[in-house]
């Protein structure tokens, strides 16, 4: 009777062990792809700075569409001295050439003495005609904010920022009262419209890798999927430890 009970218990343990072993193997197969995927994206994120992932812009239309980004490309621009400025939050183009400066959406551009003055609501960018940035003026450097208009008056640059202020060098400002030719936006000609396409919304590669790693790229249920994978990792660890110590006891 006792021998039979002992035999049953051994049989039960063996059956549980075999089942657990099978489950452990299958869980390993199921999560193996995720392990490779998480390790690769994890490595990339760990070295995102070195790999400069944050500065690599991805403009692939289907990725933008997947993220729900609609192609808002500027249809208007600003012209001065025969040069065209196009800009939005993605960047600035002077005659189709990207300017290496962050400004935000421009509200106007004027040209005086071979220099271009580009205003956004809270900054003023001064460029040479070749596109080299002379200076970017922020709040401390401006006579007022927000800038609502930029214009020209007798070779002086005038900003409307509450009151009107004029400068001839972008360094010293004085209140101005008088006639001003204000810059206005104009519809872009065909060649500029084509150039404006590179200002379509983009995502940084780091952002995409982060979203792949966390599962967010798959929408609301992506993180839940990764949670489920994490749970399988935990079960794998638990079953692995159980089997290891069970074998050692023998």
């Amino acid at each position, binding site marked *: 009777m006792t021998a039979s009970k002992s035999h049953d218990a051994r049989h039960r343990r063996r059956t549980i062990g075999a089942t657990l072993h099978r489950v452990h193997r299958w869980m390993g197969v199921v999560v193996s792809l995720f392990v490779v995927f998480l390790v690769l994206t994890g490595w990339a994120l760990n070295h995102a*700075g070195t790999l400069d992932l*944050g500065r690599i812009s991805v403009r692939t239309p289907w990725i933008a569409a*997947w*993220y729900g980004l609609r192609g808002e490309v500027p249809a208007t621009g600003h012209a001065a001295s025969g040069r065209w400025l196009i800009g939005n939050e993605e960047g600035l183009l002077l005659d189709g050439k990207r300017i290496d400066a962050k400004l935000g959406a421009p509200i106007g551009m004027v040209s005086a003495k071979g220099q271009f003055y580009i205003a956004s609501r809270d900054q003023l960018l001064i460029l040479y005609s070749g596109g080299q*940035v*002379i200076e970017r003026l922020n709040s401390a450097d401006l006579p007022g904010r927000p800038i609502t208009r930029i214009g020209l008056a007798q070779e002086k640059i005038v900003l409307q920022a509450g009151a009107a202020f004029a400068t001839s060098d972008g*360094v010293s400002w004085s209140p101005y009262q008088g006639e001003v030719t204000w810059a206005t936006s104009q519809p872009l000609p065909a060649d500029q419209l084509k150039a404006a396409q590179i200002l379509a919304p983009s995502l940084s590669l780091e952002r995409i890798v982060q979203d792949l790693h966390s599962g967010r790229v798959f929408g609301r249920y992506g993180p839940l999927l990764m949670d489920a994978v994490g749970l399988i990792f935990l079960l794998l660890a638990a079953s692995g430890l159980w089997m290891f110590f069970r074998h050692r006891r023998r």
Partner: protein
Amino acid sequence: MKNRLRAACLTYWVFLCVYAQADEQVYLAPEVFLAEAFGTPPPPTVLWITAAIQPDVEKILGHPPSKLRQRYWSDGIKTAWILDEIGKEEFITAGFIINNDHIEKARVLVYRESRGGEVRYAAFLKQFEGAQLSDQRRLTKRIDGISGATLSVWAMDRMARLALYFHRQAQK
């Protein structure tokens, strides 16, 4: 299903955009920084980054300068510099007061990165006080880093060295 996924992604994107917008932290208005430095600030002057000094600036920054002239304020003895430098992806705006070729005060004015804002704390910024520029264009004081804010610390170090270098050029 796909529409719902797209809607979820769009919501997430909008949230991130709003979050990113809200990320710009102004810790000290530039006007307040200048008032701290001078009481009544003197009018600004500009230092042109000419071809002669451009290689040194590039060596300090590790990349070409993003502009051709730098604005500063001076009362004849000390100078104040408001500089922008990218930490990881966004500009960090910092102010430096230089007196007699050493840093009198360093402050973080605007921080735009999502991580690493600890560089704004006084305990970190105090390390810069008294630092000078060596002949190798390095700081004469060792600046201890902050875990998780390495790129911001490096950006602060570059700006400190640049402020000292610019001060030297402005005094010539």
